[in-house]
């Protein structure tokens, strides 16, 4: 095989490798998602973020509209501050509320945005005022147990107190 032939084959090999990398990057990894697209940031404070993680999706009506870029603890109020990156194409009213929800029973947690009715839209850097924390299973169970106990107590007192 001539020198040209070998060079062509090596060129083909390198090209194939590059195509493989592009395939993985665009089709099987997150480069194609928000890479380079226009986004703006919002923040939201939650009493409890549960198992929310950085890069978790932000969804509105189930449609993915962005992702979580950072999570930190406010040292004064002890609330979790979640920074969201939302696609520029999606604008939300000022009184939009944010919830931390779970996809399925065992799925990952994500931030759900529920649009309000305000005429003004949230601008870049704004904070979402109305938030609802993640449901923590232990709290839920203890609430349930306490209400059961309270009911039982109320039954014993012949409905003396609720």
């Amino acid at each position: 095989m001539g020198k040209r032939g070998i060079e062509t084959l090596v060129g083909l090999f390198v090209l194939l490798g590059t195509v493989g990398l592009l395939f993985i990057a665009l089709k099987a990894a997150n480069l194609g998602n928000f890479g380079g697209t226009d986004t703006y940031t919002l923040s939201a404070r939650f009493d409890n973020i549960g198992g929310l993680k950085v890069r978790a999706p932000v969804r509105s009506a189930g449609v993915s509209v962005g992702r979580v870029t950072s999570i930190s603890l406010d040292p004064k109020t002890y609330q979790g501050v979640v920074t969201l990156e939302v696609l520029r194409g999606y604008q939300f009213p000022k009184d939009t509320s944010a919830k931390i929800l779970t996809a399925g029973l065992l799925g990952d947690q994500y931030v759900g945005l529920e649009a309000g009715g305000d005429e003004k839209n949230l601008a870049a850097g704004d904070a979402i005022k109305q938030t609802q924390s993640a449901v923590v299973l232990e709290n839920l169970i203890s609430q349930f147990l306490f209400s059961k106990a309270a009911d039982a107590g109320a039954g014993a007192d012949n409905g003396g107190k609720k």
Partner: protein
Amino acid sequence: MNWLAILGARALAVMEGWGHAALFFLDLLRVLPAALRRLSLVIVQIHAIGNRSLVIILASGLAVGFVLALQMYYALVTYGAAESLGLVVNLSLVRELGPVVTALLFAGRAGTSLTAEIGLMKAGEQIAAMELMAIDPRARVLAPRFLGGVIAMPLLAILFSAVGIIGAWVVAVGLIGIDAGNFWSIQQARVDIWRDVGNGIAKSAVFGVICTFVALYQGYETQATPEGVAYATTRTVVISSLGVLGMDFILTALMFSTP
């Protein structure tokens, strides 16, 4: 006291071997710029090391993708999480199996041929002849092969992972009947280009250095006899494989220790 002397001699021999290999490695790094100036030699080596390993790498990648998809499906379907099949296969290929299995195959396919080639060059006194002609055999023979191996390995690992994911797609979507949109979207949502793919490629570059260096060193330092070359070829596979597996643990611990 005899056994103490034996122990000491063994330890000294091991240390000497490591030191010799380290100095050899530094020597090799020193002559790399010379090899970069003669790129045509490197290209011939990429062809010999990379192109010729392509078939076995692609075939193994496809097979691993097939089998991984089938096996993971049985595990995941129990928990109603069959949709994350694509994610599981993707992460295991891109982070671990792609770089590691490629490196093991590379040690068997390309490393042995490098060792045998250089060992026979030494046995045929070609290396000595070069030295007589004042040509540095490290710059002329070893450096292009080293560069070729280090360049070829990440490309092979990427292709292994890519073909594996395609194989998993064939099984998951074609055979099992998982929704194709779901298969890709969960990967796009959860596989990070730098953290997962980038670290996988960094791993395979390190493995490329290990495998190629071990092969060259074993070939260059072989006893110039048929038995010596056979022994060196075997050692290439054993040392490269153990080096890759050990290094993989260290790299994984460093790269993926934080969730």
